[in-house]
């Protein structure tokens, strides 16, 4: 492109339009992160469901798969940051939302693990305990370790939040639809037992991340092949 060429007004407008389009078309989400998290959360939720349904225990907590996913995510993020030659205005905001989401998930995990034990200790200090009482006295009362009821519903609620923000900001309809479905699954999970909450959580991960991720990946590969 030469800087010397004298432009007419029409040519100037055409140049502006084509360059803005080029800038827009230059940045594509590869979809890998969305697929990674969709698969991880869906598998962890399904394995947890199977533990309850089939009444057996894996040698590890299926949700520990998240640690493996975090390692992969760090590797993907570092690799992509090296390849990206353009930064968009919304990138920082979206990254901040996902970081906040990650911290919130960790906070919720800490809450679920800490609060029941602390509640049991505090109640003991006050001289009382949680007791499981069977209606009609079919079994004798049992001392109960407190737990957060239907806690997985809260995770489903959290899954929807960053997904909806990303979907609206990037005008990416599959993520908006996924987030809305996750909110529906959250409402349903308020009325179901934990094992079904886990199934709904797996579904939420599939609609929020796995399906949008696959759509993004296919778009990216199609564009890359067209450019070759």
């Amino acid at each position, binding site marked *: 492109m030469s*800087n010397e060429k004298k432009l007419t007004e029409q040519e100037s407008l055409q140049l502006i339009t084509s360059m*803005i389009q*080029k*800038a827009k078309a230059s940045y594509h989400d590869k979809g890998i992160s969305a697929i990674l998290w969709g698969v991880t959360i869906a598998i962890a939720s399904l394995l947890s469901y199977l533990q309850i349904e089939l009444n057996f225990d894996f040698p590890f907590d299926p949700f520990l798969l998240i640690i493996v996913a975090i390692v992969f995510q760090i590797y993907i993020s570092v690799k992509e940051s090296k390849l990206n030659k353009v930064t968009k205005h919304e990138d920082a905001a979206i990254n901040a939302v996902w970081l906040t989401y990650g911290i919130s998930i960790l906070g919720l995990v800490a809450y679920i693990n800490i609060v029941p034990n602390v509640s049991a200790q505090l109640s003991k200090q006050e001289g009382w305990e949680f007791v499981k009482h069977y209606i009609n006295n079919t079994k004798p009362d049992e001392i109960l370790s407190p737990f957060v009821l239907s806690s997985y519903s809260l995770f489903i609620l959290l899954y929807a939040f960053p997904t909806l923000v990303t979907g609206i900001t990037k005008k990416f309809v599959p993520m908006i639809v996924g987030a809305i479905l996750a909110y529906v699954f959250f409402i349903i999970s308020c009325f179901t037992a934990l094992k079904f909450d886990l199934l709904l959580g797996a579904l939420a991960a599939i609609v929020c991340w796995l399906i949008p991720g696959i759509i993004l990946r296919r778009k990216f590969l199609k564009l890359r092949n067209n450019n070759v």
Partner: protein
Amino acid sequence: MFKELDPILHSQLRLAVMSLLIGIKEAEFTFIKEKTNATAGNLSVQIQKLKDAGYIEVNKQFKDNYPLTTCSITKKGIEAFEKYVKALQGYLHTDTN
């Protein structure tokens, strides 16, 4: 009365650079070179002119031991670009009448 078109922007390569940068936060020099099909030397000269006018900011740093130049549009650059587009619209509107 026609508004005069900004001579800094009314040049093919400089306008292309500004149009690329207007919708994004920042872009690497290699990206701008690739999208404008300009030579590195010519692009460097035009980027310097835009920088001297206060329309863009140029950051030079090192990434993995390689020099990395990134460009971003300034507030003054955005205002000048908007003014330029308005002036263009004025010309085109008059032409169609």
